[in-house]
């Protein structure tokens, strides 16, 4: 799978074989083989990840960075290997800049809190977008409140794309940080973060990118992007829950105060004064989620082995197919029609409520997400209570889409 000999025509990746790596996809839901279309909320795990974590607990577990004995060294090695894998996965320049956090939410909270305490003053501005997840809104509201700063919002158009002319106007000398998602969880829009970063940097403003929905679907190179902070969740990229990554440029991480206090993050402690450990440990107080890191490492290696190119191609085909098939149903309205989209389809069925559609799909063994997707301001922007959202991963196939389309048709017959 990994070696592409230039003399042979690259074989089409066998995604059916890949699907078989995911034990959960073999179960039933409500008496029907499950169609899992909620990977945007959390993805399923391949056996390789499950095995790696079991193996760690069965053979390698001890606390890290502490014991002088061999086992503790092995655990530390397994843990730090996970960091190196993550570093390579996003092409971070140094391991010091790759912090383990619980997930995207904690990554953003860390930056909002620590960067906020150091750099946000009264009258300053934080710039986010109208399509942010609550976890990229609320931490900034809290930081702004603390500092007396103001939250500004880049608007979107009806297709669900950022209005970049407005961004240009909103970005100014009062802006202290821009925080946007790479891919919208509710709409699937891929945002032009390259342009955002370039323009922000032109006036010395750092950018945080919420990568929760991009990392599972596309290649991310933090150096090529020149992004200041990039954060994502392990559980959305086929790894375990409770672990995620915050990449941050060393210059910022060094300048920021620690987030949590405790063990691991200190150099010396006296009751009068504590000096802090070096990066990345300065931001990793307490015993970390070692098994989670091992699992995340296995997940990222798994994705890398398939290859981003093959994944993107497969998902793009599925997205096109799903969009086309759903659109054939009369009364379907797709929310989020950006030119640049990742494999998320949010839709409404005229005259029905998302909850009703989701309930009937559930009975048919189809798992979709319904509701506001933790993006209430975005739903308000569209004047809708929520949507039905199908979010795809590389383990989905056209049969899943066919079952979804059939299910929506059935829901329509029952509800209208």
């Amino acid at each position, binding site marked *: 799978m990994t070696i592409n000999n230039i003399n042979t025509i690259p074989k089409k990746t066998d995604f059916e074989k890949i699907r078989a790596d995911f034990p959960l996809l073999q179960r039933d839901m409500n008496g029907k083989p499950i169609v899992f279309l909620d990977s945007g909320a959390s993805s399923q795990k391949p056996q390789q990840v499950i095995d790696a974590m079991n193996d760690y607990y069965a053979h390698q577990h001890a606390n890290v960075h502490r014991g002088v004995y061999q086992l503790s060294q092995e655990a530390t090695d397994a843990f730090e290997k996970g960091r190196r894998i993550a570093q390579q996965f996003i092409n971070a320049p140094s391991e010091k800049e790759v912090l383990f956090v619980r997930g995207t939410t904690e990554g953003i909270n860390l930056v909002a809190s620590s960067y906020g305490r150091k750099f946000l003053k009264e009258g300053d501005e934080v710039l986010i977008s109208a399509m942010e997840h609550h976890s990229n809104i609320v931490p900034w509201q809290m930081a702004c409140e603390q500092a007396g700063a103001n939250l500004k919002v880049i608007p979107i158009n009806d297709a669900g794309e950022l209005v970049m002319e407005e961004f240009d106007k909103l970005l100014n000398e009062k802006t202290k940080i821009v925080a946007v998602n790479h891919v919208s969880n509710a709409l699937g829009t891929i945002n032009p973060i390259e342009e955002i970063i370039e323009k922000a940097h032109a006036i010395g403003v750092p950018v945080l990118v919420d990568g929760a929905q991009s990392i599972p679907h596309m290649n991310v190179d933090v150096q090529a992007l020149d992004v200041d902070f990039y954060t994502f969740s392990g559980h959305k990229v086929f790894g375990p829950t409770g672990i995620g990554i915050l990449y941050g440029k060393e210059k910022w991480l060094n300048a920021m105060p620690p987030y949590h206090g405790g063990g691991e993050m200190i150099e010396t402690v006296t009751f009068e004064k504590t000096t802090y450990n070096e990066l990345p440990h300065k931001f990793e107080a307490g015993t970390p989620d070692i098994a989670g890191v091992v699992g995340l490492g296995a997940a990222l290696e798994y994705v890398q082995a398939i290859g981003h190119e093959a994944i993107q191609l497969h998902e793009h085909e599925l997205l096109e197919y799903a969009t086309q098939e759903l659109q054939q149903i009369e009364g379907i309205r797709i929310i989020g029609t950006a030119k640049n989209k990742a494999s998320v389809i949010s839709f409404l069925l005229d005259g029905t409520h998302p909850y009703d559609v989701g*309930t009937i799909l559930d009975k048919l063994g189809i798992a979709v997400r319904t509701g506001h997707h933790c993006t209430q301001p975005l739903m308000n922007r569209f004047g809708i209570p929520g949507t039905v959202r199908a979010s795809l991963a590389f383990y989905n196939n056209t049969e899943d889409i066919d079952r979804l389309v059939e299910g929506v048709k059935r829901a329509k017959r*029952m509800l209208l």
Partner: protein
Amino acid sequence: MSINEIQDEIIEEFDFFDDWMERYEYIIDLGKKLPLIDDSMKTEERLIKGCQSQVWLHAAQEDGKINFTADSDAVITKGIIALLVRVLSGQPAKEIAESELYFIDKIGLKEHLSLTRSNGLVSMVKQMKRYGIALSSQD
């Protein structure tokens, strides 16, 4: 009829259905049939916000009994509301406060009254009982 007699009646009715499809079609029908609440009653203080769907609940007392009217923006939620109203509305406050709603489970709709669904129904039932408690403790 008492609360439990109505519950048993509903359970018996649902026994006729063969599968989930028929059950849901019936509930959807119930939901569609009646505008349960006057639109002017759909005010903020009568609104119970669920994460998924919303519920409006209005209570009026009459001789120690409570009459409920309610509504929802989702039709399945509304159908279940119709059943809840049928069971509880017009009953003595004390009975409402002490009621145990077993019929939901028995007719296979338990998941709609779980917090994870957060369609507003759990809060609605709580609110109905609160009215019952409030009124029965007055005398």
